[in-house]
Structures are given as structure tokens and as C-alpha cells.
């Protein structure tokens, strides 16, 4: 979709121990619980209309 997230290199990834520590796992789960809903909500019609109107200019 977008270039930014695909340009990962192994050196650019967070260290394994940071993610796999008990706290790291708990933090990741907690953040997903707090943020996943927002990412998955439908896009407001008003915003889509704004973009489509600009596309059709």
C-alpha cells in the first residue's frame, strides 16, 4: 500500500528481546486493545466525500 512500512531492514526492527519480554508482550497487547478499534472504524462519509470531490475537480 505505502512505501514507508515496507522499507524495513533487519537492523531497523526493534530488538527481539524488547518485544518478547513479558512486559513487551503485555505492552503490545495493551496497545492493540487501545488502538486497533480506531484503525478499524469505518471512515466518516464526510471525509471520503472531501477526497472524492477533490479527485473529481
Amino acid at each position, binding site marked *: 500500500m*505505502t512505501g514507508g512500512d515496507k522499507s524495513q531492514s533487519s537492523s531497523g526492527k526493534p530488538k527481539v528481546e524488547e518485544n518478547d519480554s513479558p512486559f513487551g508482550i503485555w505492552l503490545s497487547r495493551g496497545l492493540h486493545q487501545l488502538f486497533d478499534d*480506531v484503525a478499524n472504524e469505518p*471512515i466518516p462519509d464526510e471525509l471520503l466525500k472531501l*477526497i472524492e470531490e477533490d479527485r473529481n475537480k
Partner: protein
Amino acid sequence: MTFHDQVIAILPKLRVQALSLTRNRAAAEDLVQDAVCNALAAQNSFIPGTNFSAWMHRILRNRFISDLRKRRETTDIDDVPAANFASPATHEDSLALKDLSLALSRLPADQREALVMVVIQGMSYEALAEATDCAVGTAKSRVFRARRQLEAWMTGEMPSNDKLRVKVKALREAIDARHRDGKSADDLFLS
């Protein structure tokens, strides 16, 4: 994929970034809309084939900073109501999650943003650096400091000047005590 298709496709990620910066859902929606308006107005400055994701995230970030500067002329940022990351109460019903939400709201915005973009969006440090217009070392440092600070707070290391957390802890204990006694705790929220 056209420019406009790319804008639509990245909206969910912009929302997450906006929420991480503003700490408030309504403010995040406004920020995304404003950033999209800015991007549409500046679309001729985007060079096709370059990193659209980073370009768009930078626009949102710059808009946030610009709005913050304007607000600071009249209000103190610390007066802004704290965390409202997850509005559905059923999703935030554990004390630990509430504590995490509170702790997140106390992190500096750039650290919170960096942590969320790496953990939720799976961004590499390089992509984060490009999206937030900083050096890779700075991006790494922000994520590291955010993790370290949250771990310290969540595992009970409480700075002596952390008045908010002390106050919240005392309030929770008072509420629990009232509930144990079968009494209402509503008046505690009025003081």
C-alpha cells in the same frame, strides 16, 4: 494507485498516529481531516514514486505541531483533559489497561507517537524516522525511552513528583473501599 487512492488507503494509519498524538478520539478525527485537507492542497508537491506514507505522516505531524503552537498561546497543554484513547468502556474494563492508558497520556507526544507507530503499525525505525522527520537514532531513542518509562510506571516505580498517578491511586483505593462497604462513590468525583 492514484494519489487519492493512496490518501484513502492510509487513513486508518493516520487515525492511529493522530490518536497517539492528541490522546483524544474527537481531536484525532479533526486532526486527520485537517491533515487530509493540507495534503490535498499540497498534492502537487508530492513526487510520485517517493515515499507517500512518510509524506502523509509528516503532514499530519506538522499540522498537530502547528495546532499545538496556536493553542499554547492561550492554553497550557497540561490543562487538556487526559487520555481518552479507548472510548468503548467494555474494551477498557481492566485496571491494567486503564493504567496503561493513563501512563501513555503522560508520555511526551513524540515518544507516544513513536511507540505506537512501531508497535501498532509495525514500522521499522528507518520508516519511523522518515515519517517523523528525524534521525534514525532519534527514532530508536524515542521508542526505547517510551518503553522504559512505561515499564517503570507500570511495574510500580513511581517518581516522587508524580502527583497525578499518586492522586489516581488514592482515588481508586477510596472508590474500592466505598464499594466494599456497599456505598456510593459518586461524590468522590466531585472533589
